[in-house]
């Protein structure tokens, strides 16, 4: 492999990894607070892409505005999912929420098949993103730097939110002890809603950028990236936001490098991600940065 090709693969790895990271953050934030694997998260990712598709189709607004609207509306959708499918089960055994999450996931996918149709739709990609240059000897499309840079900015923003604001303080408190947080006058339901909103908006951003890279969208497009992002969250240590970021980058990079170094195995790239999951669960179930959660009595 020449240096040029190697550099090309690094760029691809970062790009894919940052998308996994964006989606993994949503899994990890919800898990951190509710100890719930939000299976509907991968479908929220899909809805983000469709949201942009339809807003663009109907209103023809400037692209950035379409993007913001799609992300915000998907965030609202995430809040609605929590309100309808998880909040009524807050006091129920945790397995009930988990089943509800699986139900919501199937519901959204099948609703998508009915409403959007099963045939893939061509995603509108502005000229700017597909423009490409030769940088040195590396071929580079705008999209390959936009994705990591923009994802990086979003993650920076999220980190600021979680570690520098009052809302973030409340999120960190709730993830440790919900009852005591409410005794500190934290509106627990409100903060959980914000968490779902933020996580879903990030998933929407991920879904839209995914669609910019692979400009065909269909109602089941979220499944595989969703599972990969979940694996990334487990790899980094579920419940840990920095863990989700690192896990995402690592998984993206591993996947690209596997294909680059062993092209004959390229058909196994999805299987490889699951292998990573199995190994992590066997060797270090808390992930890279995860800490042991002591179950509360």
């Amino acid at each position: 492999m020449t240096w040029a090709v190697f550099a090309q693969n690094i760029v691809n790895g970062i790009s894919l990894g940052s998308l996994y990271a964006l989606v993994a953050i949503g899994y990890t934030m919800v898990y951190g607070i509710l100890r719930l694997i939000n299976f509907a998260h991968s479908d929220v990712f899909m809805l983000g892409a469709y949201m942009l598709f339809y807003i663009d189709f109907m209103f023809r607004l400037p692209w950035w505005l379409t993007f913001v609207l799609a992300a915000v509306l998907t965030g609202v959708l995430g809040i609605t999912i929590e309100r309808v499918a998880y909040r009524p089960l807050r006091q129920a055994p945790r397995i009930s929420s988990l089943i509800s999450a699986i139900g919501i996931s199937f519901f959204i996918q099948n609703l998508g098949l009915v409403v959007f149709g099963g045939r893939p739709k061509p995603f509108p990609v502005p000229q700017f993103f597909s423009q490409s240059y030769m940088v040195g000897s590396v071929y580079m499309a705008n999209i390959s730097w936009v994705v990591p840079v923009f994802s990086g900015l979003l993650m920076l923003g999220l980190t600021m939110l979680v570690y520098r604001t009052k809302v973030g303080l409340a999120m960190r408190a709730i993830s440790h002890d919900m009852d005591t947080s409410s005794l500190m006058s934290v509106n627990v339901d409100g903060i959980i809603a914000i968490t779902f909103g933020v996580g879903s908006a990030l998933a929407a951003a991920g879904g839209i950028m995914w669609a910019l890279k692979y400009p065909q969208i269909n109602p089941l497009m979220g499944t595989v990236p969703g599972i990969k992002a979940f694996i990334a969250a487990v790899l980094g240590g579920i419940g840990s936001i920095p863990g989700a970021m690192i896990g995402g980058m690592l998984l993206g990079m591993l996947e690209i490098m596997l294909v680059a170094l062993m092209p004959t195995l390229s058909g196994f790239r999805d299987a490889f991600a699951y292998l990573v999951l199995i190994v992590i669960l066997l060797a270090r179930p808390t992930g890279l940065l995860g800490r042991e959660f002591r179950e509360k009595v």
Partner: protein
Amino acid sequence: MLQLTDVNVHYGGIHAVKGVTMHVSPGSIVTLIGANGAGKSTILRAVSGLVRQCTGSIAFLGRPILGLRPHDIVKRGLTMSPEGRRIFPNLTVKENLALGSYSRTDRAGVADDEERVFRLFPRLKERISQPGGTLSGGEQQMLAVARALMSRPKLLMLDEPSLGLAPVLTQEIFEIITTIRNEGTTILLIEQNAFGALSIADYGYVLENGRIALEGPGKELLGSQAVQGAYLGARVGVV
């Protein structure tokens, strides 16, 4: 200030609190003592809104609070420091205190109160940027009380502040509770250390199997045969 009338709580299929009527008047220290499992904590959890399966009436400052959510009750000036301290071990001392004042918007007042709790608990100031989990048991208890004070409560409810503390620290906590009261905060104190609690309380209630078995001024209960036999026993003279 706080009035409970015929309060019943069913908790996990158990009738844990049976027809409790209690009153806390402004500026006093009222204590609720009783054996482990008598229902003391359940009463406080009902007052603070954590337990919902509750009937009867609970009024704070003349207005009913039963059925309100915990964070709304805190905003009315009624704060509880829960049993077992429950500080946030992953957050720093400063962040723990910031949670105490979470819903307040008067920055100047919050700064004043921060100074006040550092005056009451100088040790916390030294540990300000340490994670709460690294504090000693006594320091964690101080943090729990300080954190509750940061909401500037009109009524502060303390659930077993002396739990697991060495006698010297227990003494110190009781002194601080008295100071807090003298500075204008009404106190409702739950204790297993009946002697310590009754010594500083203006009024006391003795809870037995979810019912108020006995009530009266603190000093009076301290002298009563029944209380001495049941709750003080060997503890007299030890603390």
